[in-house]
């Protein structure tokens, strides 16, 4: 098998067109990875400038009281992960700034997609675009006639007479073409490592390894499927046509059709409905039986009892700070109810979509590519939740200060900015288990089918 594999590779390297294409793809990957990193760095710089600017404003703010500071608020900027340079995922279409202020939870704003005319339907020219769309096509074209050309030239018979089995010949061919795909993948990961290694940690390394593994499995699936079809059809043109149709279905059609279907099965509320429901709960009480005035009266009573006084004017603290925090906590429970349900619904949609990996391994690859790059929906929702929890802590701190009094410039300066703790991939691993399972399943099934077919195939 080693000899066949070696000869296969030599055969490929002797082909001038192959060498030209390999060179073009290698250079393209080096350049796109490099420019992806440049773009990332530029975006990080721009974000850091904006963050510093916002912090300066906070430090220079003329605070009359902490409640005004709560209205003044802060901003949370969606961080840009290192591997965003490989796969931007949803980052181009989601907003990247949230205003964090008292009394209200805002939406993330200013998406890149809303800032200009439409350019590309398949995303920017990042390594993920090449690795998901272009390289697979190159591999299909390498694989589609690998069997039929040997058969038609009579070389296959010669190899079989020399003692090789069809099984070994086929798998050597698959491994040879797969190794080309792996080399291109290695180039991408190597360039990424070279230019960003100072920022690497264990988590990034794990992410990069899993990204490599996901693409490797996908390439194995695609090459095996192409060879399988060429074995099945004997005629290389039919095999190529069917593989191309399948590729178009996987990459272009099915993700859109399944994405839309999932949203139809599990429809999301419109913004008006969502906001009206939130407003209703905010004003009527979370269970509909607890109007805000009653809550206020109860709070006054309990506060008077807690401090052992008869009227609000006798309180040693500022009651408005207590009231604001109580209102904030009530608002938080409304947020938890509605946004909790929305996030759950989005998660359910994603889970249903992940099952489509059973018939479309590209869906699993896409999901894992975004996941390992930290640019998928789960990471986005995690950012939104962390921003909201920071907002709650910030407003609570300000309300408590308003309640207790004694604030000065140093108090405001001591308040830390929002810092996003990027979740480790392993903590999210179970969310993507289906994607991994489907990629493995596809690989195993195709290998088994190929083994079966090579036994059944007659060469004569």
């Amino acid at each position, binding site marked *: 098998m080693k000899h066949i594999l070696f000869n296969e590779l030599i055969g490929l390297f002797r082909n001038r067109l192959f060498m030209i294409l390999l060179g073009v793809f290698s250079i393209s990957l080096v350049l796109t990875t490099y420019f992806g990193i440049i773009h990332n760095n530029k975006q990080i710089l721009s974000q850091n400038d904006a963050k510093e600017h916002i912090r300066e404003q906070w430090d220079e703010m003329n605070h009359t009281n902490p409640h005004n500071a709560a209205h003044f608020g802060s901003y949370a900027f969606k961080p840009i992960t290192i591997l965003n340079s490989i796969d931007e995922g949803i980052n*181009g279409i989601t907003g990247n700034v949230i205003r964090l202020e008292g009394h209200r939870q805002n939406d993330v704003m200013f*998406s890149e997609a*809303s800032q*200009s005319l439409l*350019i590309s339907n398949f995303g920017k020219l990042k390594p993920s675009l090449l690795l998901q769309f272009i390289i697979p096509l190159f591999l299909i074209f390498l694989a589609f006639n690998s069997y039929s050309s040997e058969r038609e030239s009579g070389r296959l018979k010669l190899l079989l007479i020399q003692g090789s089995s069809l099984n070994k010949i086929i798998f050597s061919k698959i491994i040879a073409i797969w190794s080309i795909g792996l080399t291109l993948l290695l180039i991408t990961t190597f360039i990424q490592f070279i230019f960003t290694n100072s920022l690497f940690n264990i988590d990034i390394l794990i992410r990069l390894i899993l990204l490599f593994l996901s693409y490797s499995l996908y390439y194995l699936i695609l090459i095996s499927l192409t060879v399988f079809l060429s074995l099945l059809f004997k005629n290389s*043109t039919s095999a190529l046509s069917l593989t191309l149709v399948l590729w178009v279905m996987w990459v272009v059609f099915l*993700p859109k059709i399944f994405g839309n279907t999932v949203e139809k099965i599990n429809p999301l509320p*419109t913004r008006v409905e969502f906001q009206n429901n939130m407003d209703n709960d905010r004003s009527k009480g979370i269970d509909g039986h607890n109007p805000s005035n009653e809550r206020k009266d109860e709070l006054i009573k309990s506060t008077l009892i807690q401090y052992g006084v008869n009227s609000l004017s006798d309180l040693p603290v500022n009651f408005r700070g207590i009231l604001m925090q109580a209102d904030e906590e009530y608002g938080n429970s409304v947020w938890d109810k509605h946004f909790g349900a929305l996030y759950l619904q989005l998660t359910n949609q994603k889970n249903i979509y992940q099952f489509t990996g059973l018939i479309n391994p590209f869906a699993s690859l896409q999901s894992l590519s975004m996941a390992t790059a930290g640019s998928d929906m789960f990471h986005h929702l995690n950012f939104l939740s962390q921003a909201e929890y920071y907002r709650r802590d910030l407003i609570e701190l300000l309300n408590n200060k308003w309640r207790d009094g004694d604030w000065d410039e140093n108090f405001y300066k001591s308040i830390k900015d929002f810092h996003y703790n990027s979740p480790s991939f392993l903590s999210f691993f179970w969310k993507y288990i289906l994607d991994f399972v489907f990629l493995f399943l596809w690989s195993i099934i195709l290998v088994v089918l190929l083994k079966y077919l090579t036994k059944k195939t007659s060469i004569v």
Partner: protein
Amino acid sequence: MRVFNILFYEFNHFRRSSAKVLTYLIFVFACIYSIYSGFELQNQQQTTIETIKNEQKKEILLVSKFFQNMSVLPGPLDVLGYIPTYATKHPSPLLPLGIGQSEQYGYYKKITNWSSTYDNDMVEEIANPERLVNGNIDFSFLIIFLLPILLIIFTYNIRGFEQDMRFDKLIEIQYGSISKWILIRFIFYITLLLLTVLCFMFFVVIVNDAFFSHISEIKSLIFLLLIYVLFFTTIFYFIVLKSYGSSAIAFKMISVWLILCVIIPGTVHQFASIIYPTHYMTDYLDSNRKESYEIFDLPTDSLYVSLLSIYPDLSQTKHAKENNINNDYRRNALSAIINHMNKSAINNIEKQNELKNQLICSSYWFNPVSFIQNKWNNYINTDYYSYQEYRSEIQKILDTKLSLLNFESWNETEVTMVVYEDYLKQLNAFME
């Protein structure tokens, strides 16, 4: 006669090729699905807008009833504060032919004294972001990206098959001009595709009764479609003419599709993002936060000066003759000044966006797919500029509202039912 023969044989070949018929049926099914989704989106937007309008009508009716029972005429502040002001972007009747960038922006907005065109509610509808990344099977997507693939599947083995089977010389002997023979076979498929697409387009036009109201847009869309199909056909025709074997032809055709539809737009996208990275709109954040808070602390005389710089005619009003700004009017003055600041910050944002757009437009000569895509979206009112226009309309309504609030209160107008109706007219003028 020979032309008809070739066309007839091609029809028979197509009819007997199950793979081609199946692909064609998939395309037709995708067209039906995309148009259905487009209608659904259109209906959803119209229903939401209707709901908003009904709510608005109810609120207006309620205030009108108050008028009937009032013995003392109210002031403008009491009335204007209770006029529910909305701006909506009605979907074009051609929306089922392409949803464009409509999922990136909001299409309705409640306008208050403190609104701006970059408010939180101006962002897109609630949607699954991963679904948005993959996009929709919308009609324009099918035309721009899948139609060329369908053309590839239909034409990659024209002559290639004969070459694979080694009887291409026979064709030459039978028909003489091979290039003409290829062209006629191409014409069959182009006609089939164009007729299919045009049928769907006219179906949408008829269902939405848009023929006369949108005739120029329809003509432009058909023209775009023809140019686009001809563009790809010409390239594929020469590939067939100059290549040998169906595999080589298929490889070259797919490569051209990838270069034109994926690589070039992706490269321009990446280049534009490096030159103009996503901006964080700090100017707007400033005017929305720090500068707004500074305005709140302004002493009355400075506030008056600032207000006069926006509304010079305010000095001619009754209240201007008094020495102090009435506390009730102060908040309106503040919102007018903040609106003025927001507008200048937003102008900067729009200018920055325009620079990026100019860069994108300058790439059209080598990036025809983006050109067709944006032109198509423009005719359907779903491109960036259509939403920019919507933002301008929101700004106009807001300016009118703030101007009314300040002038009417400073003039100490007594609001009768007639005046109230005039307010309504002015504030809702942009809604229909």
